């Protein structure tokens, strides 16, 4: 196969004033992984190049880096598919301080994980004689999420972390899901209350980077969606995100459509005066441009059908004891 150029980020914290890119030429052989190429470069061309690796088989999670701007595992990706105009550009993971070259300081990742007590907390009062068993169906709930290898690829490309390092982050929210959905864990409710605090579950924008970059079946965005559903079911609705979801439910139930006058007010909270004032300017600006939604909400045709669907599920929910609808004026 033809020779290609690796353009690799070089930087040593505490020594270099700014990063640079070094270029290395290498003849690709069919099936070469990115990691194999790096090993060849380090072995034959430049012993000072720093990157992490261990298992070489997508299990340890240490070789995550960015290729052409996107996070991936170097050992799980063939180099040939990454070549763009004869070049592959490698950078360290995003959203972390760089220690040297492709090695980043993962401390923010670990300290976020610690916040959600990432271990099983069963009810110790009812200690079983042998181990705590799960049925296959119960395990199914956490089958995907337990595949996380803590590689931090999701972290690297998360759009919210780019603007706010306080955000709990995708892998942490997935880890919280792992224990909330574990039938052997007894702290589900506390876990849910904890992650619905500000900078948590409801701060994710759905940008989808985490699920796209995740090399396992963990797919954090899908887990975030499931956790939000669980939180709503449990009736933990005292946060702007949950109120927003409730507002949406009500609006869809009554109008079959989104009522844009009602929803912002509901999300901010009826009694949150500073919050309500905060949504005023955009409303006024839009009114001046005749952009504000019609004062009289728009009902879709045959809205009765949609109401019946909601009602049917409301009955089901009552039967399973879900509390998500308790306080919001459902009929």
């Amino acid at each position, binding site marked *: 196969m033809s020779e290609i150029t690796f353009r690799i980020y070089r930087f040593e914290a505490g020594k270099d004033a700014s990063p640079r890119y070094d270029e290395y030429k290498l003849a690709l052989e069919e099936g070469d992984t990115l990691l194999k190429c790096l090993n060849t470069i380090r072995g034959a061309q430049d012993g000072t190049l720093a990157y992490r690796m261990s298992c070489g088989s997508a299990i340890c999670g240490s070789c995550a880096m960015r290729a052409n701007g996107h996070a991936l595992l170097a050992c799980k990706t063939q180099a040939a598919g990454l070549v763009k105009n004869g070049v592959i550009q490698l950078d360290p993971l995003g959203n972390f301080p760089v220690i040297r070259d492709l090695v980043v300081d993962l401390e923010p990742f670990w300290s976020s994980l610690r916040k959600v007590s990432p271990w099983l907390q069963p009810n110790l009062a009812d200690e079983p004689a042998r181990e705590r068993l799960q049925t296959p169906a119960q395990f199914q709930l956490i089958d995907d999420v337990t595949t996380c290898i803590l590689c931090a690829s999701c972290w690297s490309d998360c759009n919210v972390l780019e603007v706010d390092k306080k955000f709990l982050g995708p892998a942490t929210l997935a880890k919280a899901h792992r224990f909330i959905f574990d039938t052997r864990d007894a702290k589900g409710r506390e876990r849910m209350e904890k992650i619905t605090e500000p900078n948590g579950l409801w701060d994710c924008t759905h940008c989808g980077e985490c699920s796209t970059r995740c090399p396992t079946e963990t797919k954090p965005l899908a887990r975030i*969606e499931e956790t939000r559903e669980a939180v709503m079911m449990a009736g933990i609705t005292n946060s702007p995100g949950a109120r927003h979801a409730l507002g949406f439910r009500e609006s869809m139930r009554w109008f079959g*459509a989104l009522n844009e006058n009602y929803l912002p007010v509901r999300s901010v909270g009826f009694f949150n005066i500073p919050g309500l004032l905060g949504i005023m300017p955009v409303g006024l600006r839009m009114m001046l441009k005749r952009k504000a939604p019609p004062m009289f909400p728009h009902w879709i045709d045959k809205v009765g*059908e949609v109401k019946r669907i909601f009602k049917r599920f409301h009955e089901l929910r009552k039967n399973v004891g879900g509390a998500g609808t308790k306080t919001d004026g459902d009929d």
Partner: protein
Amino acid sequence: MALQYAFFTGCVAKGAGRELLTSTNLVCKKLGIELFEMEDAACCGAGVGGEDNVMVSDTVNARTFALAEERGMDIMNICVTCQGVHKKAQARLAKEPGYMARVNDVLKSETGREYKGQAKVRHFAKILIEDYGLDKLKALVVKPLGELKAAAFYGCYSVRPHEYSDLKNPDDPDEMERILEAIGAKTVNYPGRLKCCGFPIIMMNKQNSLTLSGSVIRSAKESGADCLVTQCPLCHLNMDAYQPEIDETLRMPVVHIQQLIGLALGYTAEQMGMNTHIISASGALASI
């Protein structure tokens, strides 16, 4: 026979972003694409519905698909959020026949309808490229957009997760640029092109939301764009209506892709609702 679609407008195009509805209708009229507006379809839930209860949301959306099937048509969306939500719902239903059956049970008993898994959902841009053809569009252009430098903003629901994306190469798409070039505009590549605009958390964390949209707008501006072009009324809302709160000095017009197509097809700025934006586009459009 003319192309015909069941037209899912979404709620924003009927409320705060009515210029999107008007411009889509006029553009399709000129192109000879027949739209049948789904007045009876419910809101897609914008992902929020699914997070409240995924089965309710899938059932409401299955009803929408069933309505299109009754008309014997595929669905056209004009909002990448609606498109992404519809596509995810269809994927979930297709993946598990047992789930589909349970959803259809509710649907049948509450509405007498059934989703058969036939109606396809696609965004306007995809229909334009695949069903209509950009050569045909190009042939109808009477006022090429000449000097206008347009920065396409894809909207994350159209890009990620990749498994639900309709783009050929979601990490490096060119669909919007191809449409813009067909109507004679110049396009610019800029770092924010595939980023999130932050809209979904505008009610939960306004500061983060507006930092996200602000960085998209800045990056387009630094790359020399005259305007941002969206294919989702929600991206539009966060970047246009909120722009004065982000930074008064940015003054970056944000327009719907349908509006630019309409101008190229000979409609006036007024007909395309250009005067309804918070950030005036008249300076940018003076060049065409």
